[in-house]
């Protein structure tokens, strides 16, 4: 990212959620982003995940300038290279765990047989094979977030973006989730985690601190 600015118009006021960010993240890194509420962490994650566009500046993903891609192209890049994990899990309540995990593969147009194989593998990786046919309401918070992780990783993305993934979980399930994420990172996936939890943030090899839409600190272990 070079000189990335993202402003929001709130009434007649312009809020600078990101105010000139320069940032390079290498493939396979484990990055935590911390900082006070409203400092622009989520905005940055959304830009990295191509859910949002910068108002100004340049963003290249895997060497390709993605700032100017159109809606269809951005959707494809999201589907192929990015996995999202949200604080609120965002599982589709009427679909079973397996169907939720299957969703990105379906959207990508992958054949049903291949989908089933990959869904089974992804659920096994998060230890939820026996919960495949449960709907989210029948799962605990930790299990739901693990389903969401399986869904985010089933497409084998290069980057995993997690916005406060443990924010809605108790300590024990939070630990489970962090362990699963770190396992994935150990196998090469780039992991970027926004968190309020100092302990979780401290585990990352690279720790970014944001204040008022700028990077205030960028520390490597």
């Amino acid at each position, binding site marked *: 990212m070079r000189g990335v600015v993202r402003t929001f118009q709130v009434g007649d006021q312009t809020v600078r959620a990101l105010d000139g960010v320069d940032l390079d993240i290498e493939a396979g890194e484990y990055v935590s982003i911390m900082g006070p509420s409203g400092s622009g962490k989520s905005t940055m994650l959304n830009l990295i995940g191509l859910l949002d566009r910068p108002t100004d500046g340049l963003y290249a993903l895997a060497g390709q300038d993605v700032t100017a891609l159109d*809606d269809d192209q951005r959707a494809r890049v999201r589907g192929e290279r990015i996995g999202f994990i949200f604080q609120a899990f*965002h599982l*589709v309540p009427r679909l079973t765990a397996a169907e939720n995990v299957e969703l990105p593969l379906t*959207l990508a147009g992958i054949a049903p047989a291949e989908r089933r194989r990959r869904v089974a593998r992804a659920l096994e990786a998060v230890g939820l094979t026996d919960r495949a046919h449960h709907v989210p309401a029948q799962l605990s918070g930790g299990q739901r977030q693990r389903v969401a992780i399986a869904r985010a990783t089933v497409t084998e993305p290069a980057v995993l973006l997690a916005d406060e993934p443990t924010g809605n979980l108790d300590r024990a399930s939070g630990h489970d989730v962090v362990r699963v994420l770190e396992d994935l990172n150990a196998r090469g996936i780039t992991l970027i985690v926004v968190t309020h939890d100092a302990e979780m943030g401290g585990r990352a090899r690279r720790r970014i601190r944001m204040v008022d839409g700028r990077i205030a600190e960028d520390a490597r272990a």
Partner: protein
Amino acid sequence: MTAADTLRFAFRALTGFRVRTALMLLAMSIGVAAVVLLTSLGEAARTYVTGEFAALGTNLLIVIPGRSETTGGAPPVTGATARDLTIEDAVALGRSPQVALIAPLTVGETALSAGTRSRNAVVMGTTHEMETVRHLTVERGRFLPPGDPSRASAVAVLGATLADELFGARDPLGAQVRLGDRRFRVVGVLARQGQSLGTNMDEAVFIPVASAQALFNTPSLFRILVQAADRDAVAPAERDLLRILRERHEGEEDVTVITQGSVLGAFDRILRALTYAVAGIAAISLFVAGILVMNVMLVAVSQRTAEIGLLRALGASSGRVRALFLTEAALLSLLGAVLGVAIGVGGGLAVSAMVPALDLTPPAWAVAAAVGIALTTGTLFALLPARRAAALDPVEALAPR
């Protein structure tokens, strides 16, 4: 995403919101069923009336005294009263090569009695040919005998109801009946004919036309029924009839000829138009169902905002989101239409089973139109909600609320 997967996703969404889906299916199917049932009714009415009219006779033309001024223009200044039609007119018409049969008709009403029983009867003065021209069926004896139409003769043919009421179980054949102060011998009894365009043949008594004219003391005819030689002869026969009568009436065109075909066509057109009108009114309920679909889909979009944001995050473009919601609405409309056709056709069959005279088989065009309109309105009205879903900003859609 493949078409099959899109359909499956839409179907899961429909089964995932059962109450909502059931309500919309109900609205859609009521609209479709209304179109199907009402057009079936209209069609049934049309076939009934045109069938009734076709049963009047074959290649039938009717000559009526007086000119019907349907085309406007000034009324005739001289000879304003139309000349009467006479038996001689009828005989002259019979000479046209286009004409197969002629049946003059004089109609009156008077008391008919046999022994001590008496009742009012419609008297039809006519000739032997009437039996063929009007497709009458004789049950016992025979119809009026052939012969010179200008010769009176004291014979009568009774309608079925009259025969029953005057003679009960006794055989009327050969018996004497009185019409006014004249006596007639019963030579035949008609089979039950039923009501036919306002005239109940079962309550009529048929006597020779000359006898009827004497009875009612009139030289004129009520009308002349003409059967053309064949189907192609109807139009030339009409011209012939008018020409012959013009010549006989000193060049004045003072009669009206109506052909069975033209009346049949008019009825057919009117009733068809009526069916379309009724179908159109019923289609309004489909429009209402479309509006309902729009509202429910709008609610669905706001309820499923997070889901929409999620789909975007998982690699769906805004176009894909729009397609998903449109598919959902189209699928819903299709299911509603199928259900509605089932209800409409089933209801029609049920009514037909209870009232065999009423054939409520819906016309194929009505079924096709109802399904088409349901699909189109359902999808059109879903355009707005689907566009709204597609236009959602994924970040805001995913933001916790």
